[in-house]
């Protein structure tokens, strides 16, 4: 433990946040006459020049449709597009690019899996989720539950915002068919012990899906080590473009699942008598894909690969620690989600203030946060709040910005006094 912290301190000096901020041009602007302090990374992260350039270059030099044209541009586009798939495979440590499906994002990926597994479900089957899920990992399951007679069962959480393992153990039973759970909570920042949960689920033959949307900006997941059946995430939270995301799925399961959408690309042969499906991953990629976005996501992952991920984690932890220290400077401020293992996400409430009032008045001071229910209404119900204010940090945020947030919160409080 001591050795590790020494190593981290040594690397911390090598971590130059000013240099990193120069990679993100959007950060150096003024909002409402104040320097922008962007603390809404949990909703969507900003993009480095490497991503913008990769997409620009793609459109300027190589755009054409993929897998089709008998010409040079078509080849270039296909090489770039499939190269990005390989980059994602490596990022997740998946076994094969056959297991990497492009989707529009996390939401579509979960819908795809839910629909693909629906034929295997029967009345009385249970789909285990948790109280802290984003609606994207609740509603698709509810929709197929309605179709199949299965039931969506939530694992309870503790007041600190950790998964209640007793509840998990008692709810995981012979009727459980699917465990669909978030790796990291978008509201609480809690990092769930997903490897252990997957292991327990698998021992009972339960299929497992991990929602990695909030995890990948902070950790590099290893799907083989996690041993999950499905892992999903969105590009735009991982410093890549919007409109694209990833479904990792175990090849054998993907083979068994029916296609999600029909159309071009996903077929092997079409006739009015009989149509057959393309091989993986194309079976699940009907229509012309988001090619430039795939290239952009590949560039984002490569950009992150050039940074010292351990140093970034240390820097992010320093941001959260500083924020936690400063909570007491705002009377009546309370953190929602105090799990031991957290990413730098801070949901909070301030006595007497509505989250939307806090958000509006922080925006006047150039500070961007998220307010509302964060697409996690069951979690809001658990805490008995209509919504929270949430500051979510990325490695390009500075300690000075954390301090500015608290100075601004004090000002907000004075205004309402």
């Amino acid at each position, binding site marked *: 433990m001591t050795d590790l912290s020494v190593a981290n301190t040594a690397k911390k000096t090598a971590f130059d946040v000013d240099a990193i901020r120069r990679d993100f041009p959007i950060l150096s602007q003024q909002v*409402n006459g104040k320097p922008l302090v962007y603390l809404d990374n949990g909703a969507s992260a900003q993009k480095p020049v490497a991503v913008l350039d990769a997409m620009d270059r793609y459109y300027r030099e190589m755009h054409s449709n993929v897998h089709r044209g008998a010409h040079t541009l078509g080849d270039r586009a296909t090489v770039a597009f499939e190269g990005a798939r390989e980059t994602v495979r490596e990022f997740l440590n998946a076994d094969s690019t056959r297991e990497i499906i492009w989707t529009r994002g996390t939401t579509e990926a979960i819908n795809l899996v839910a629909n693909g597994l629906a034929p295997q479900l029967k009345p009385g089957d249970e789909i285990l989720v948790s109280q802290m899920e984003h609606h994207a990992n609740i509603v698709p399951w509810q929709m197929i539950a309605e179709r199949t007679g299965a039931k969506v069962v939530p694992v309870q959480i503790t007041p600190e915002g950790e998964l209640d393992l007793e509840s998990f153990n008692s709810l995981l039973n012979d009727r459980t068919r699917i465990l669909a759970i978030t790796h990291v909570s978008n509201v609480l920042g809690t990092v769930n012990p997903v490897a252990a949960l997957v292991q327990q689920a698998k021992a009972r033959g339960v299929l497992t899906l991990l929602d990695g949307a909030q995890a990948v900006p902070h950790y590099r997941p290893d799907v083989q080590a996690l041993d999950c059946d499905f892992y999903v995430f969105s590009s735009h939270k991982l410093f890549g473009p919007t409109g694209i995301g990833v479904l990792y799925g175990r090849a054998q399961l993907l083979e068994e699942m029916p296609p999600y959408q029909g159309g071009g690309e996903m077929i092997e042969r079409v006739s009015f008598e009989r149509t057959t499906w393309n091989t993986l991953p194309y079976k699940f990629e009907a229509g012309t894909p988001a090619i430039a976005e795939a290239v952009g996501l590949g560039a984002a992952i490569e950009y992150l690969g050039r940074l010292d991920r351990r140093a970034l984690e240390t820097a992010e932890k320093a941001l959260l620690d500083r924020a936690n220290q400063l909570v007491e400077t705002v009377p009546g401020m309370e953190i929602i989600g105090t799990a031991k293992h957290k990413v730098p996400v801070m949901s909070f409430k301030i006595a007497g203030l*509505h989250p*939307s*009032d806090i958000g*509006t008045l922080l*925006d006047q001071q150039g500070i961007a946060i998220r*307010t509302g229910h964060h697409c996690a209404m069951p979690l809001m119900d658990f805490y008995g709040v*209509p919504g929270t204010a949430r500051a979510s940090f990325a490695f390009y945020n500075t300690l000075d910005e954390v301090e500015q947030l608290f100075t601004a919160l004090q000002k907000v409080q004075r*205004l309402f006094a």
Partner: protein
Amino acid sequence: MTACEQTFLNNPLGKDTTLEDVLDGFEFLDDWEERYAFIIDLGKQLPSFPDEARTEENYVHGCQSQVWLIHHYDEESGKLFLLIDSDAMIVRGLAAIILVALNGKTPRDLLATDIDELFEKLDLFRHISPTRGNGLRAMVGKIRDTAARVAAA
């Protein structure tokens, strides 16, 4: 006359606090802090809202915070009286501005009032987010629908 009707008729917004007061007030505010402090203060003038009226029927959809609207048509004077409630203070303030402009008018006068012009004069939209702007429009929309219904009855 019921207590609730009294609340409607005694609402200071649009009666004691006039549009001129608000316009004059805004004129001398330079920075965002003064502007919002003024809006928040206006919100404090909203009369208390009856608990039992916080129903789905009276809920204004499209706002970030919870907003309720009820009305009372005074047959004697032919005027429409409004009460708005919200759990967010800035929304209460913006609701107060709307009431200053629209409360206690005949439905016909209410429908003839150009509220967008007022918002423009106050330069409100420049200082509030598009989502908040949508909430404002949702409130105004529900008030205008109510006025149109009463006028047609």
